[in-house]
């Protein structure tokens, strides 16, 4: 059987749609240039040593004891953080879904799941140092411990667990809600105790989901840069080692090889998580629960669980609250009164605050709509259309999810600092060589056009920061876009197509209006992620651009915690403000209101779930 005719016809039909073809070409070019190419160049650089294939770079880095130690450190931290976050996340999710809660506790849970979204990735490290460090409020002022060290292994583990457990909480909450209560009721009915039901029914059903949550946090922890940077002290992880290899040792080949190692680890885990565990989770937990669950009201269960969770919640909130408060003390650790706004003043008067906020804000504001639109287009193509390159587009945009920011940053340095494929070195781009006033070698034919090689001008400009913002937020946007689009009946778009609309018209008049909410939340998520990003950015930022997160990181490393806190507080206000703005906007202009008039009340209390997965 030959399917050649239908393939040829499908191709012809596609070609009859120039907007669609153009979009696909642009997308493929973008994904290839800014995701595949930087990663490929890392591989090439680490295996290519002047005159051909070599393992010398790898032999060199593997001989470095610091590098070997950092691999061990990274895996140890990641493993423990993965386990702890999953346990804490499960506890919170179970309590929320199964236990009758006081209203206020439920509200606290929402705050906890929201905080990591709106705050920059490393504020918890700051508050950890400020509360429990050598000069910490709790350790020194209150408990009178003068030599407590939070730096190192435990510091990273605690901070990362607190940062990442809300991710697990949100994931597991969704899964628990999908368990059909009648399964557990059947077990209870046959005489199992509550604990027995959990151990023999709920837990086994949840197991693949737990594995999934564990791996997701594991990857997050490994890829995290900012927390180990601030609180790690001399305890280096892979991400920080790579950073130091570039900024400290100026060893770009070595850093590239290290980045390859880090990428292999995260990619391997990502593949297990994506193709094995996610499929298994979907297989055991299918569809929605048939009806509501009888919540546990038994006081011997509710009271201890509620107290436990509330304490954990209050601890987390205290950690975050420490940031704005810390920015008000005259001298942290020594002088607490009178409260002062002098640090906020200094942010703007002495430390380029205005410029930093302007740059961060403008760059994120440019990146966000592009990201949101790109991810919606990708989701539309992946879910609703069929064409040859679809697999490529889907795979590459998901691949970006597994790439740690540090790796991407090194890839961009290697890939673009000398132009595309180091094209600045090619003879046609080369500058003239002049010796003693005599031209020894003519300038390359294209030197005038591209003095830094192909695309060489991108490196060091603000444009590359915007591109990094886009690439870093694209996978989450695409993922939520795909799940939103899957819920829309395919025949709605087919009918519009049938009425005579071309792909562009269908996308603009049908698809986009139907996923307006998802588009908006994608927009804000991209904005928030961009303005709080650091890991790839810190490697690419040049002195001409000030970014808030880079400033915070700098001050935190110097020990200027108050000024770092002041920066962080304003940043949190901006991000929280934008999320509030989005919720308001959706409430009044969102599709949910127009489409479900009978459910307006519900829509009012509905909050859009922003992707909580952050980069570090």
């Amino acid at each position, binding site marked *: 059987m030959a399917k050649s005719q239908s393939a040829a016809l499908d191709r012809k039909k596609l070609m009859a749609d120039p907007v669609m073809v153009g979009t696909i070409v642009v997308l493929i070019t973008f994904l290839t240039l800014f995701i595949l190419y930087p990663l490929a160049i890392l591989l090439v650089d680490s295996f290519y040593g002047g005159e051909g294939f070599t393992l010398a770079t790898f032999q060199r880095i593997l001989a470095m004891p610091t590098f070997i130690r950092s691999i061990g450190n990274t895996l140890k931290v990641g493993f423990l953080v993965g386990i702890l976050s999953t346990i804490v996340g499960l506890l919170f999710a179970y309590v929320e879904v199964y236990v009758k809660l006081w209203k206020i506790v439920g509200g606290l849970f929402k705050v906890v799941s929201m905080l990591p979204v709106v705050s920059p990735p490393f504020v918890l490290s700051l508050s950890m140092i400020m509360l429990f460090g050598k000069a910490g409020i709790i350790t020194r002022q209150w408990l009178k411990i003068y030599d407590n060290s939070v730096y190192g292994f435990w510091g990273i583990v605690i901070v990362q667990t607190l940062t990442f457990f809300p991710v697990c909480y949100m994931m597991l909450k969704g899964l628990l809600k999908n368990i059909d209560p009648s399964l557990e009721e059947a077990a209870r009915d046959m005489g199992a105790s509550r604990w027995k039901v959990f151990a023999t029914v709920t837990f086994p059903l949840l197991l693949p989901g737990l594995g999934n949550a564990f791996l997701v946090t594991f990857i997050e922890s490994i890829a995290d840069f900012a927390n180990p940077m601030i609180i790690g002290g001399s305890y280096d992880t892979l991400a920080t080692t790579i950073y130091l290899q570039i900024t400290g040792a100026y060893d770009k080949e070595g850093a590239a090889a290290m980045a390859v190692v880090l990428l292999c680890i995260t990619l391997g885990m990502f593949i297990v998580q994506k193709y094995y565990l996610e499929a298994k989770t979907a297989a055991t937990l299918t569809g929605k629960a048939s009806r509501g669950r009888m919540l546990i009201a038994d006081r011997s269960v509710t009271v201890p669980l509620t107290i436990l969770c509330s304490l954990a919640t209050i601890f987390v909130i205290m950690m975050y609250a420490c940031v704005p408060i810390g920015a008000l003390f005259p001298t942290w650790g020594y002088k607490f009164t009178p409260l002062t706004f002098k640090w906020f003043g200094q942010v703007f008067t002495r430390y380029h605050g205005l410029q930093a906020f302007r740059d961060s804000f403008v760059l994120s504001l440019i990146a966000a709509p592009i990201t949101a639109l790109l991810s919606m287009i990708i989701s539309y193509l992946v879910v609703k259309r069929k064409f040859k390159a679809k697999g490529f587009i889907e795979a590459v945009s998901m691949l970006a999810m597994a790439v740690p920011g540090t790796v991407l940053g090194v890839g961009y340095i290697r890939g673009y600092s000398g132009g595309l494929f180091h094209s600045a070195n090619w003879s046609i781009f080369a500058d003239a060589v002049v010796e003693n006033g005599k031209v020894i070698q003519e300038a390359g034919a294209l030197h005038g056009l591209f003095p830094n090689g192909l695309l060489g001008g991108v490196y060091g400009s603000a444009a590359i920061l915007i591109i990094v913002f886009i690439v870093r937020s694209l996978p989450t946007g695409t993922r939520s876009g795909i799940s939103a689009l899957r819920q829309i009946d395919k*025949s709605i778009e*087919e009918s519009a197509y049938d009425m005579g609309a071309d792909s562009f018209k269908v996308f603009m008049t049908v698809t986009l209006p139907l996923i307006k909410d998802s588009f908006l939340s994608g927009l804000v998520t991209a904005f928030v992620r961009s303005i709080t990003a650091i890991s790839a950015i810190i490697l690419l930022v040049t002195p001409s651009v000030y970014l808030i997160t880079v400033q915070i990181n700098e001050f935190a490393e110097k020990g200027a915690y108050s000024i770092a806190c002041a920066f962080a507080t304003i940043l949190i206000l901006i991000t929280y403000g934008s999320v509030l703005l989005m919720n308001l906007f959706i409430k009044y202009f969102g599709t949910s209101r127009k489409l479900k008039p009978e459910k307006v009340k519900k829509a009012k209390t509905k909050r859009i779930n922003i992707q909580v997965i952050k980069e570090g």
Partner: protein
Amino acid sequence: MSKEKKGVRLDHISKIYQDPKTGKDFYAVKDTSLTIEPGSFVTLLGPSGCGKTTTLRMIAGYESPDEGEIYLGEEAINALTPNKRDTAMVFQSYALLPHYNVFDNVAYGLKLRKVPKEEIQKRVMKILDLVELTGMEGRMTNQLSGGQQQRVALARALVIEPSVLLFDEPLSNLDAKLRVSMRTEIRRIQQEVGITAIYVTHDQSEAMALSDNIIIMNKGVVAQMGSPQDIYYHPNSEFVADFIGEANFLKGTLEKMDGSHAILNVEGHPTRVPAKAGMTPGAEYTVVLRPESALLKDEGGLPCEVVLSCFMGSYQNYHVKVGNSLVKLTDYNPKNKRIYQVGEKCSLVFDPESVHIL
């Protein structure tokens, strides 16, 4: 409508799909040739997986055929995208645009065609009047009942005045009563507009009530095409006979020919049936007997024994055994008739003209 009516012709069309489990290719539609006359109402009928929806989607342009060519009127349309084909589809799930009201849904296709505003207004209102939805144009589609939504979908398809109207099981989401009234409605509108319509369904009564011609499909090929009467009374295979209405199959060997009739030996008894061409003595033939075309009598036909006798209101339902074969019968209006009980021996009587030999 002023437009010229167009027919549809399928010329040796095949569509190959891949089985997602085994990864093997199979024919969803195989070497199918059809001619649909301009202005006629044709139903594609068959069990699920027979290729009827695939055929429809190939005509609409969502799927591309692997072999053969599709013609709309005289024009080959294989390479045209759905938006360039002069067809309009009514979907099973209605597929109304949920963010538009009724008027905007119907006007959507006209706006795309850049029809002037006043004319859009006029044409939409005219069509809404035809589907009896006048006064509803400001409603959002989720404020309509299923039947009303289906009318909007129909209006939306009609308003762009396509050459061919395609229906993909449009009534299967409605309840039984509404389905009956909607199908009369669809037939009325199609007759009024005089448009060519191709209708996919697995519901035989829908096919009977609507169609000028029925195309029965099975396993990717056309099993039979003909008028409803033709298909019911003269099925060409056991599959068609069984799929349309209920059918009993009696096997018998040909004893001799008797003019235009044949004498078959059915379970040891000579039975007179209308002959078909090219019958040979001694060969086995199958006779199709509809449940309503035979009666139970005390004597005078094939001897049988009652194994089930059940009162159903408008008819008495019998299962009887003729030799080794089971025959199902429906005896309408059973009041004041002799009712045979289970275990009784009696006789199966039918008019030779009411049976059909395969």
